[in-house]
């Protein structure tokens, strides 16, 4: 490639007209209550908080703020349901309820997709094609395990744990709820789940689905609130198992508070994954993998490929092609079917991302952003890459959780591997090469829970997911995901 490549132009001429997904089939209540014991009830202190649309900054609804008394109520309801109907029910019957949830989610997929994009800012293409179908798939998958648990643990007798307290993040609201609820129910536990503060609406709609599916009251309780609500769930004496997905900072606090309590726990925390591109990779598909790795869901992905390690001899070509590809990414209205990158989830998160953009420039890195227009109101960040960064830079070491990629080069496989593993995180990684042997060598040596080869950000309910080091404890998904919700007797 010459040093001065001819430029392609993407912004004049034929444009795509707006193609908004209609919202008239989705109704949002003025106010949402707590879902406890199969009914919706007001929080004791009658406090509420707003949830907004991050693309417009408009208020969508008010949501109950659960206090410790509400948490206690929810845990009691879960305990009662556990000791009552649920733990005595035949496993096949239990499975039937979970299948029912899965089917209703599929039937109402369009409604859930719109709601997810309205409340969280993610593009409708992703909520429609990924989040909601995958959430339903998790319920289907674990429904099938409900009456086959002894085959999952040959020679052992799996027993349910009791009440699971679950706290989930805002990046994949319904999907994370399904990751948590489906295996818990399949294994015979009951649940108290708290959705994230900024994205409670699909969880509250899921509460309606659970009612519609006629689950015994109290088997699933969904309570909204902020950090303190989550802490009250985690620290409640009658919770047997804690499942948390979120930041490493909060994960540390949780792990500290759980020490010595005997509660079982799984933590899915942050990441700073390396996407490693070798010179013998299929370059154009690798560029696509970079885009999927870091710009999927605005980069609000714990397993995002936020560090790019590209072999020296192809670095110039990869970066030039990546820049052209970034020009074609459409940033804007999450409900437009052509949008590739939606709104940043909250003002707070946008501040965090912006502070890292400043840090990166102060550290001497070169920042490049695509030239696309972004709306005036709402929270937006153009797709961004940093070149000329070093291993010692904060933008290489710390999780940004936005559409921001740090690019480094390497010369030898060993150098690439050393850089990839030189991080306190270990959630995911990516390897791009046409050589099978190199794939095996790299995937065995990258210390991360998930390593993709010649693809990135692929998820399936049958596949376990989880981290090494500061990326967390335990696995969710697949057969391994059952282990977190049972105790094994010999």
């Amino acid at each position, binding site marked *: *490639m*010459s040093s001065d*490549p*001819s430029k*392609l*132009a*993407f*912004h*004049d*001429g*034929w*444009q*795509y*007209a*707006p*193609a908004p997904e209609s919202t008239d089939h989705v109704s949002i209540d003025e106010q949402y209550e707590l879902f406890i014991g199969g009914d919706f009830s007001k929080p004791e202190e009658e406090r509420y908080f707003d949830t907004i649309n991050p693309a417009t900054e408009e208020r969508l609804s008010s949501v109950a703020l659960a206090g410790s008394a509400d948490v206690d109520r929810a845990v009691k309801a879960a305990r009662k349901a556990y000791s009552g109907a649920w733990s005595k029910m035949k496993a096949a019957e239990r499975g039937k309820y979970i299948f029912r949830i899965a089917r209703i989610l599929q039937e109402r997929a369009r409604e859930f997709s719109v709601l997810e994009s309205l409340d969280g800012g993610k593009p409708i*293409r992703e909520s429609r*094609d990924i989040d909601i179908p995958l959430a339903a798939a998790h319920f289907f998958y674990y429904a099938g395990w409900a009456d086959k648990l002894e085959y999952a643990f040959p020679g052992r007798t799996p027993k349910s744990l009791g009440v699971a307290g679950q706290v989930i993040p805002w990046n994949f609201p319904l999907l994370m709820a399904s990751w948590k609820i489906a295996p818990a129910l399949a294994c015979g536990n009951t649940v108290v789940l708290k959705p994230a503060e900024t994205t409670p609406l699909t969880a509250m709609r899921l509460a309606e689905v659970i009612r519609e599916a006629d689950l015994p009251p109290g088997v699933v309780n969904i309570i909204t609130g902020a950090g303190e609500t989550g802490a009250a769930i985690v620290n409640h004496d009658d919770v047997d198992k804690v499942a948390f997905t979120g930041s490493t900072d909060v994960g540390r606090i949780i792990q500290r508070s759980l020490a010595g309590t005997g509660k079982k726990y799984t933590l899915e925390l942050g990441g700073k994954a390396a996407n490693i591109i070798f010179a*013998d*990779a*299929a*370059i*154009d*598909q*690798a560029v*696509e*993998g970079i885009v999927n790795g870091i710009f999927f869901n605005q980069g609000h992905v714990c397993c995002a490929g936020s560090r790019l390690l590209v072999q020296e001899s192809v670095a110039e070509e990869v970066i*030039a092609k990546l820049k*052209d590809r970034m020009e*074609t990414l459409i940033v804007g209205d999450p409900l437009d*079917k*052509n949008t590739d990158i939606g709104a940043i989830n909250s003002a707070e998160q946008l501040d965090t991302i912006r502070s890292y953009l400043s840090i990166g420039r102060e550290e001497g890195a070169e920042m490049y952003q695509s030239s696309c227009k972004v709306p005036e109101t709402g929270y937006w960040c153009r797709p961004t890459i940093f070149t000329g960064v070093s291993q010692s830079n904060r933008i290489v070491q710390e999780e940004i959780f936005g559409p921001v990629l740090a690019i480094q080069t390497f010369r030898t496989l060993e150098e690439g591997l050393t850089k990839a593993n030189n991080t306190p995180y270990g959630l995911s990684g990516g390897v791009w090469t*046409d050589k099978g042997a190199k794939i095996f060598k790299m995937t065995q040596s990258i210390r991360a829970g998930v390593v993709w080869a*010649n*693809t990135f950000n692929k998820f399936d309910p049958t596949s376990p997911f989880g981290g090494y080091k500061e990326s967390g404890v335990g696995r969710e998904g697949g057969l391994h995901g059952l282990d977190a919700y049972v105790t094994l007797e010999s």
Partner: protein
Amino acid sequence: MSLAAVKATGRLPDLSHVPLVDEVGVKERAARFQTRSIKKASKIEALHMVLSMIDLTTLEGQDTPGKVKQLCQKAIHLHDALPGLPHVAAICVYPTMVGIAKKALGNNGINVASVATAFPSGMAPRQIKLEETRIAVDDGADEIDMVISRGAFLQGEYGFVFDEIAAIKEACGDAHLKVILETGELGTLDRVRRASILAMHAGADFIKTSTGKIQPAATLPVTLVMLQAIRDYFYETGRMVGMKPAGGISSSKLAIHYLVMLRETLGNAWMTPEWYRFGASSLANDVLMQLQKQATGVYQSADYFSKD
């Protein structure tokens, strides 16, 4: 339409440096273009663009002068019930029909493209191919659609294929050369990408997927690989090369997704009949039907659109 001829590099590149292709990744990317939703004004604009890019084609052993004349009328009068339509880019015929087509089209700005070089198999001695090309050009062909020698290419005789394309290009004179790779016979996307690069360096003004006589013909993944090769060649040389997917594109919706792919791979500079063509026979009527629907809100019966 005037097409400016540009000089090629004229030397066979080292094909081992051509980027590799991962088929799974290509298919995934191609599928992504099909999730683009093209509505309202952008759809109408796209449909007009598609019409203007069509090489209206008849390549049958049973072709007659009458049939070719009818097709030329269709090229000029796509659907007079709808005012303001563009005309197609070219008529594509066998060499024996070039003179007839040229006369029938008159001065309407529609090119005559002739297949040549023992289309569709390419199994003829080089002298015959050159002579056939010269005859078609002498008879008035503005564009020549040649086929590469797939057998030689598959045997690794890249020099032979390169020289042949360069020789045909020379025989074309001022006529524009489209090089048909017949991707359905190349077997892998890696070979498609190498053949694309080879053809461009040998002087192709356009690269084209298929003859239409072999299945699979044009597909989105194959076309994407060729567009990426055009982009790489453009990065390297600054020379634009055109693209023509041919065979199997018969619906408006699919044609629009080809345009989406073009726009997001090469950008807007390529979005004219000078740089992009559809080789198709039944696509035009489907586009016309869609335009009628956009204008009136209802679909008309196929009987309202002339079949030639």
